[in-house]
Every structure is written in structure tokens, then in C-alpha cells.
């Protein structure tokens, strides 16, 4: 059961990595605005008249 020493070390290390990831995400401002990106993804790409015709022919 000495493997437990290793596993405990691994689990702490993993948790530390996730904590570090959170620190990084927070400090780079990824949590500053949690509202706008949700709206932003709903915008369609620019659909111009010619493009939709092209699509029509290609399909």
C-alpha cells in the first residue's frame, strides 16, 4: 500500500494545477464579463446576398 504515498502526492499536485489554472484565468480577466459572450455567440456570421446564392449552387 505504499503506492498511496504516491497517489496522495498526485492528487494534491493535480488540485494545485487546477488552482493555478483558476488563478491564471481570473488574473487575465476571463471572469470579468460573464454576460456579453453569451449574447455574442448568438450573432450569425455575415450573410450577404451573393454568398447565399453560392451556397445554393454548391448544395
Amino acid at each position, binding site marked *: 500500500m505504499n503506492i*498511496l504515498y504516491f497517489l496522495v502526492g498526485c*492528487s494534491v499536485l493535480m488540485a494545485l494545477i487546477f*488552482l493555478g489554472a483558476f488563478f491564471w484565468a481570473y488574473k487575465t480577466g476571463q471572469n470579468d464579463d460573464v*454576460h*456579453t459572450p453569451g449574447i455574442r455567440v*448568438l450573432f450569425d456570421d*455575415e450573410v450577404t446576398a451573393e454568398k447565399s446564392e453560392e451556397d445554393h449552387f454548391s448544395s
Partner: protein
Amino acid sequence: MEDQSKTTTKAICYHCGEDLPKVKYQTDDKDFCCAGCMAVFKILSENNLCNYYVYNNNPGRQLKNESHLEYLDDPKIIDQLLDYKHESSGIITFYIPAIHCSSCIWLLEHLYKINPAIFSSRIDFLKKQVTINFNHEEISLKHLVETLNQIGYEPLISLQDVVKAHSSSVDKTLVLKIAVAGFLMGNVMLFSFPEYFGLSGFEKQFQSLFGWLNLAFSIPAAFYCGRDYFTSAITSIKHKHINLDTPLALIIAVLFLRTAFEVIFATGPGFADTLTGLVFLLLMGKWLKQRTYHHISFDRDYRSYFPIAVTTLEKGKEKPVSINDIKIGDRLWIRNGELVPADAILMKGDAWVDMSFVTGESEPIHKVLGEIIYAGGRQTTEAIELEVIKPVSQSYLTGLWNNENYKNNIEKQNFNDSVAKYFSLGVFLIAFAATAYWLFQHDSHKAWSAFTAVIIVACPCVLALSTPFTLSAILSVFDKKGFYVKNTDAVEELAKCDTLIFDKTGTLTSNENAEICFSGSLTNEEKLIVASLLRNSTHPLSRHILKALNVERFYSLNDYKEVVGKGLSAQINSHTIYAGHLSMLPVTIKSVGETGVHIVIDHNYKGCFDIKQQWRPGLAQLVSKLSKFNLQVLSGDTDKDRSMLTTIFPEQSTIRFRQRPHQKLDAVLSLQESGNTVMMLGDGLNDAGALKQSNFGIALTDNINNFTPGCDAILQGGGLNLLPHFIQLSKDGLKVIKISFAIAIAYNCIGIYYAVQGTLYPLVAAVLMPVSTVTIILFTTLATRWFARKNKLI
């Protein structure tokens, strides 16, 4: 379906959704209410940005009057505004109050299509901010702001930079501390599990490993996450008074020391799980307390009302100067609609100054040459020249904010801090009594463990949590009803108020629903003539009247003259028509009021359009519901509404008119000195001093994006009728906190029973704390909801 949408788009403006006047503007089969809306549509369609209208129907807003942007060419001001500047690229963040829907986001993030010198733009919707990255060599800041103005998104640039003030207000380290505390708690719980279930002989070899790991995790919990409690406790002891942080700091210290002691001497598992759990929960409570509204600023002062720069005259030449650089003796050039930023003497021009910011009086006051115009006045007629006699920071208006009376000298003690004293005293008494007993029994080991255990188990953690949980639940009930309270501490102040002071204009009356009424009579033909004349003016009053008249067609006119802010005249169908202020009219008329827009056609006086302020609906009911409070009305206006107010308000309430801002402030002060807790309701800058001095200042507004002076809470006009319910709920909230305190005491008694015997096992402490915490959180949430329902707020 298509037909339906067509009929709806026909009745309203395609751009802004306002009702169409009978004479409408048309382009591309689309109807617009005014030339401004049509111009925006044209710009957007030229730039292939018509998707703007796809995401929402009528997403636009009506354009306001033009603003002067010359100051944006001044390099000093540019440097002040830019966030970042490097070679050709610059980044700037604007606060744009008009942002309100997804179309706004889409359009403002496609600014690069309008002008290729704009690289990118990003919106923060909740904060109503846009960050623009642009090439400042190709497009000047002034041009950039003009572009935004053209499409109807005028950024608000004021002396108190809203954008920068916001970013510093959030305590970023707290969230990081919570993350660390959560990480520590999770791991410590994991390593404590074997201990909870009992260790077999085989697992005993891991006991010391887990113990040491727990100790290692306790170090950051106590000294990184819990550091604020220690510093707060030390400062409060230095000031010789005890706040809630003092016992908390003591408990954290005792938990840590006992854990270290037990692990190092291998006498037991320690209390690392309790320590980390406690710190995590405490920080969560703290976070709830700090949470505020992103989109509302409560700390605005005169600087948010003032522009960032004014035009000065130097040897006859106009030059924009930053407001902070204005010196005594400078000549200011104030145009129609601009604000006088410093106390100054009128040197040239005809001044009709709207002093509503300062005095609350809505009628413009005529000033003659050589008279002093105080800062905060808004010029309503032609441009005037002024000489500054006092710098901005020492003006009459600014003095309101620098008044030393402000409430920092009032001792603000909330329930928690007042209880903390007795609580700490009680815990110490029990702890020392238990220690003394065991020492008397010559059992020093038990004496030590009883002492520490009592302190650990009698944790006022519940006390620290029940207040933020209850009050933040109340806050969220309030904000659904349009009542935005600054923070949880303010709710406690709200509950204590016994005196209510109302301002009149804008508070008891509503600015939104002002009704145009005409005294006199006009034939249909005359209405057409008046409308044709007013159509040419951009003055808000003209637009208001035009909307009220709502005629089908217009005549063409000759010889149109407009004296800005005073009146209009023209020739229409061989009639001479005048509309405007009394002094502008060609005939002298007596026995009519000064105010309003007077109409004269062919030298015959026809009557006058007046804007009548509407009382907010349900005022009488509101006052009767508030009858147990001491009510007062302090108005800056004339006493024309005295009879109306005396019928509504009870006899013993004070109603005073013509109150200057300083008089309002003094009234609040004298009430406070006689032992009253004062709530002030106001709306304008003229109430700002009183709002700040009062124990609970509420700023009323009809549009939450409007500027409101610094206050404790912002209330939307429609929610005024709910005020008695708001006050009642805050009182109930304090009741909930007191009951939860009683529950906490009950739990503590169980814990102390074991603790004084020196037999408290870590497991009991580790179970007791979360159980009591969960009980309290559940209780406060449910009780708050119950009370909110009882008060008809949900």
C-alpha cells in the same frame, strides 16, 4: 405573420420605436419619427450594417442635441482618457448609457465597418462599456466620438471618470482567497475522512502523513485566507473596541495552534477540517456582502455632472481647457445648454440660467451683467462670456460635498458588532471557568483542551454568515422591484429610519409624465401654424408641444428667426407668429404667468403652453401607509403646490418651500441631532448634500441609466408606492437575523456541553459547524422569502 409585422412597423418609427407623428420621414419603405432616426438608418445601410435591425425590432434611441467635442483635440485631455497608447494604436474605454440590447452589442462590435481605422471594439454589456482599439493617427479621438454620436451611441465623458472608478472598486483578491480556501477545505476533508471512519491498524501508518498534510494546508488557510481577520482584529483592539472580527481571529488562531500542537506531538488529528471549513464559509459571507451592482454607481458626486472640459476665450480665440486647469480670471464661453463649471461673473451676453441642479427651481433665472452665476447653472439661451472668480474645487456647489458634517462622524454600529462584544465576553468567561475547574482538579491536559475547545465550538461563524445571507436575500427581492440598495449594511440603516424627508420636484412628481396643457384656445388652422413653426426648433419644449399637437401636415414658412432658448418667430401664410418667452413677444401682456411658451399670432395673444408636472400615482395611499413615520417635505420650488400637499400629508408634518441645498442639509442635521434617524428621498444634485448626510438616502429616478447623486439606494419612480413594504421587509430582516442568532446559541450550548468536559472530539466540531451553518443558511433564506411574500414583494 408577415402582414402582422408590417402593420406594427407602420405605426412606429423603424429606428427607435417611438409613435410616428402624422407627418413622417420615409426612406426605403421605412418610416421614421424624425430626421435624426432616418440619418442613423442611412449611415447604417450605407455601411451594410442593417443586421442591427434584425436582432431586435426598433433597437435605436432618439438622438439628443449635438454636443461640442472640440476639447477632444487637446492632447492633454486625450492622454487622460486613453487607457493605452503605443505607436499608432490606442485603446479607450467609453461608458455609453444607451447600450441596452443585443443589437447594440452587434453594432458596436462592428464599428470597423464604418471606419477601417477602428481595429476592434468590445462590449461589456452589464457595465455598458465599450473598449475600442483604434489607429489614433488615422482617426482622431474627436472623430471617433463623432462616429459614435452619429449612430446614436453617445459616450458619456465626464470629469469623474465612471470607467476608471469602476475597475478599482472590486476586491479581486477576495475571490482568489475563496478559491484557495475552497481548495484547502476540499483536500483537508479528504485527508480527514479516514479519521472520521476510524483507522484500522494497517491504516495507522498513514495517520501521521495525513496529519502533517493537514497542518501544511492549515498554514495558508490561517495566514493567507484569514489574514484580513487578524489585521482587522488588531486595529479594532488598538481603537479599544471589539468588532465581530476579533473573536473570529481568535478562533482561527486557536484552531491553528491546537492543530499544530496535536500534529507535532502526535496527540491527535487536530482541527484542520474545522479551520479550513470555517475560513471558506467566512469568506463566502464576506463576498456576499461585497457584491454590488455593476451597472449602477452609488458614489457619484458633482464631478459626474460636470463636463471634462470647457471652452475658454484667450485673446478672442476659443480654446478648450480641461476643467481642472481653470484658473481665476479665465474667460469662459458657455453655449446654450452647457453647464457653468465654476462660480463666475457674467461679462457678456444675455443669461437665462437654469439653476435646477443647485436650487431645485425649474424656472430659468435672468442674470444681468456683473452678476455672479454659481457653478452648476445651465445656460438656456445664447452663448455667454463669464469670468471665473473661484476655481472649480472651491465653488458653492462643490462646497456641498466638502462639507465636514458628513456622516463619518456618526458612529455606525450594526447588530453584529454590538453583539460581538457580549458574545466574546461570554465565551471567555465560560472558557476560563472550565479551565479553572480542571486546573483545580489538577488535570492540566484537560484544562488546556477544554479551554481551546470552548473557544472553537462557540464560534460566531453563524453570526458572521446569517447577516450577509439574510440581507443579500433581501437585496435581491428589492432589486426585482426596482429598488437598488448599495450594500447589505445599508439595509440595516433602512430598518432603523423613523423620519422621512421628501423632495418635491422629481420625487413626489414625475418628470417623465409631464403633461402639456394649453391655456387659451386655438382653431385647427392655428394649430397647424403653430406646429409648422415649432417643427423648425430643436428645443425640447418645442418637440414636446409638437408631439402633443400631432398635426397632419405643415405649412412652409418664411423669415424664420430663433432666439435660442427664448423663442421663435416666422411668417406663415401671411400670418406673423411668435412663440416663446414673454419678453420675446411683440405685445406686452399682463395678468398671465411668466412660465410656458406663449403664442401670439398677428399681434393677438392666443394663450400659452405649459408643462404641468404630474404627481406620482398613488401618492395619497403612500402617505397614509407611512403615517407612523415623521414625514417632511422640503422643496426647492415655489409654494404653488402647498394646498395640494397639505391635503395629502398629515397635519403634524412639516412642509417647507424655497429650500436651498444647504438648508436641506441643515434640516437633516438638526433632525439627527435631536436623535432621529433620517431617510431622505430626492432626485437632483440639489438634494445631494441632504442625501449624503441622511442615514439612508434614496435617489429617485425614472430611468436607471440617468445620473443620480451619491446615495445609499436608487429607487425607480414606479416603485415609490412600495416604500412602506421595503421598510417593513428590512425590519423583518433584522428579526430573522436575531432569530438565527438564537438558533446559533442553541447549537453552541450543545457544543459547549462537551467542550467544558474537555472531551470534544474533532469529529463533533467538524460535524457541528457545517450542520449549524446549513441550518442557518436555510433558515435565513426561507424566512426572508416568507417575509417578502407577506409584504407582497414576491
